């Protein structure tokens, strides 16, 4: 499996680009997509999932142009949108059967697969209730179930852990790792920890442009020797934040313990081991 995006631009108006000359190659495995709001993650996901067409550029999946032939990817796509709804008058079985029909999936095994999916996602007991009565977390799990209905070869999860409780979040990470063999999984999230624990590769975007794409270790390495911690007085904290790239800060007695990124450290600072989050902040803020 290989997805090749070459020189893709999406122009919304004469001055506004969703994506600007964006190129990336994705092979089997998990790609974590990180970027601040407005970075173009959703635009990219919509183009890959054939919902939107690029203004220029090509998107090839295994050598097939999916802009020209979107049904090629649709047959093997599992997509969990960030913001989605369900038909409230259908129950879980009916809704998943309906989505299966939309995906062009049927046959004898379908009903059994739906049952197994509902069982694995802990929804089997409420499967006969109408979806209008489901809580947010249950709807999110229905979303995950529909994405896996057709045994997809390319899976796109946009903010998949929203609404899941901590235990379900951990299980979901295991599920993604389980899926990754021989499949392309694109995982977009604002939560760096979600991506840090499972992604084989990480792509960091900003303003419609790809800033970096590499293995987690190599991306993290970009911030090496630039991450420090120091203690700052309460009265100086605002001033400090204005002049330094602060990753995090927490109250420590009457002062603040601050983790920041800098080429030249502030006096009394201690160097600390860099993380993916540090690298993400370093790349997107500089």
């Amino acid at each position, binding site marked *: 499996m290989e997805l090749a995006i070459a020189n893709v631009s999406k122009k919304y108006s004469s001055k506004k680009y969703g994506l600007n000359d964006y190129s990336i190659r994705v092979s089997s495995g998990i790609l974590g997509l990180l970027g601040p709001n407005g970075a173009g993650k959703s635009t990219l996901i919509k183009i890959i*999932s*054939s*919902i*939107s*067409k690029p203004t220029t550029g090509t998107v090839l999946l295994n050598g097939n142009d999916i802009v020209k032939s979107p*049904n090629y990817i*649709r*047959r093997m*796509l599992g*997509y969990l*949108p960030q913001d*989605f*709804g*369900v*038909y*409230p*008058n*259908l129950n879980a079985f009916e809704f998943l*059967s*309906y*989505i*299966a*029909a*939309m*995906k*062009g*999936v*049927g*046959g*004898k*095994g*379908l009903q*059994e*697969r739906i049952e*197994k*999916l509902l*069982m*694995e*996602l*802990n*929804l*089997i*007991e*409420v499967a006969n209730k*109408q979806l*209008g*009565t*489901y*809580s947010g977390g*249950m709807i999110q799990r229905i979303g995950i179930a*529909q994405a*896996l*209905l*057709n*045994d997809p070869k390319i899976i796109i999860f946009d903010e998949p852990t929203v609404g899941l409780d901590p235990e*379900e979040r951990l*299980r*979901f990470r295991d*599920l993604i790792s*389980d899926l990754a063999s021989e499949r392309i999984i694109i995982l977009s999230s604002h939560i760096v920890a979600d991506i840090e624990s499972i992604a084989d590769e990480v792509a960091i975007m900003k303003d419609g442009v790809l800033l970096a794409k590499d293995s987690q270790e190599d991306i993290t390495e970009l911030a090496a020797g630039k991450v420090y911690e120091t203690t700052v007085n309460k009265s100086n904290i605002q001033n400090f934040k204005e002049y330094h790239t602060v990753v995090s800060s927490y109250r420590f007695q009457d002062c603040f313990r601050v983790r920041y990124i800098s080429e030249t450290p502030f006096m009394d600072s201690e160097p600390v081991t860099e993380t993916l989050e540090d690298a993400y902040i370093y790349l997107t803020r500089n």
Partner: protein
Amino acid sequence: MLPFIKIIQGNYLQYVRSYSFLITVGICVYVALSLVPSPEANYTTIRLGEFTGDYNSTWIALVMAMMASVLLSLVGFFLMHGSIQKDIETRIGHIIGTTQISNSSYLFSKFCSNLLILFTMLCIVFVAGIALLFMFGNQYSLQLWEFVIPFVLIAVPTLVIVTALALVLEVVFPRKRNLQYGIFLVLYISSLVGATFEKKEIHDAFGIHEPMTAITTQVQQQFPNEDTAFTIGFISGKRNADKVVTIQHIAFSADYIWNRVVFMLIAIVCLFLSTIYFHRFNIKEKIAPLPTSAPAEQNKSAGFQLSNLSITPEFSSQLSPLVSAEIIMLIRKTPKWLLGISFCLMFASIFVPLPVAHHYMLPLLWFLQVGVWSDLVTKDTSFRTYYFTASSYKPLQRVFISRILAGIGIAIFIALPLLVRYIVEFDVHTIINIMLGAVFIILLSVFFGTLTRSKKLFEITFFFLIYSNINLVKITDYFGALHNSIAYTILMLVLSTILFFSSYSLKKLRYES
């Protein structure tokens, strides 16, 4: 006071900046210009026997104000209806519910902004009226006062009543759209009948009875022996050049003005009283119980284990699962009481005289589905399922088509008792016309839904259709009740084809953008 005005401004701008408002304005201009037909037109809107008025300020203003009162109130109800529901759907209601705004302030701000939108449309009609005076009545000068007074006294109070009514119904019967429509339909028709036939002003919510009587009196004085029966609506037949009367200034009585004020006050008081019942977005919802521990034999997995998903489903491009799921959704969306009424009417249409079943019961039965059919192609927006549809396998050829087929299937099923009766009579042509009617009405909903991405235009049009169908207006007969010619059948076929290909092309364009 300033926050209150800001809320009104926000609501108003949110609406007028929408794409659907642009379409509404376009239609409003077209309809406004057709309210006073040209001398060559094949219809009239207000007629007294064979008589019509000459194009002076008084006549044009009265015709437009009366027609606006009757028609804009209908359109206005459907446009303004659902403004609270929208706050529920967009979940803005949850934010509003936690703010300091009182129920009455919220509802009155909605009332004011909705009224402003309708006034904007009324202004368009007003300006169109002046334009028509310059077009057709260039021998007369513009008398601004003659123009303004009928609009202020006839149309404005009606819009106030309708705006308040739309909100009151939404507050008292939240989420029961079909019931709200049913109540409005009864009130609208009874007010229209009251205004036309009853002699008491109290029945005349539209405020057309007194001006109607005044015009009739003027014509009767000039032609005492002629038929001067008053008719209002889009009436087929050319204007008779020999029977054109110049209508002079009409003085509205103090009783009439008082009556209009009382109607507005009642509407506002009702709105105020409804604030007591306002749910403040705390609507009871049935919540499914959280799954308890699974039965022993099912609980072998810790959950989220993909190794248990060993079955891989086959590829299938069949349409039938999609169509049947769409049919289930259409049926489930219909409230049970409405399903009950529909089945009773279907059963009754087996026994009532055939013309009654065809002319009255069939359009009524179809109209009962208005809330369901209007949503056929717009439900992806309202339920936020657009991404599922757009990324599905051949969405245009499969999902879009299956929705149309499901709608047509239901429409034909509803007409089944009538169809069986025509089968018994071997009337194949009428059977074809009825089936084409089913196809046409569904495709009309699909076209309007695709074009505007909203269900309102179809709902308004369908309301106009049912009203004129029941009044046996020939031009709006789409199900072969008043026509039985081959030319008519071909026309319906062509219209349906145009609607289908327009909707298909538009949808294709949207998917490809």
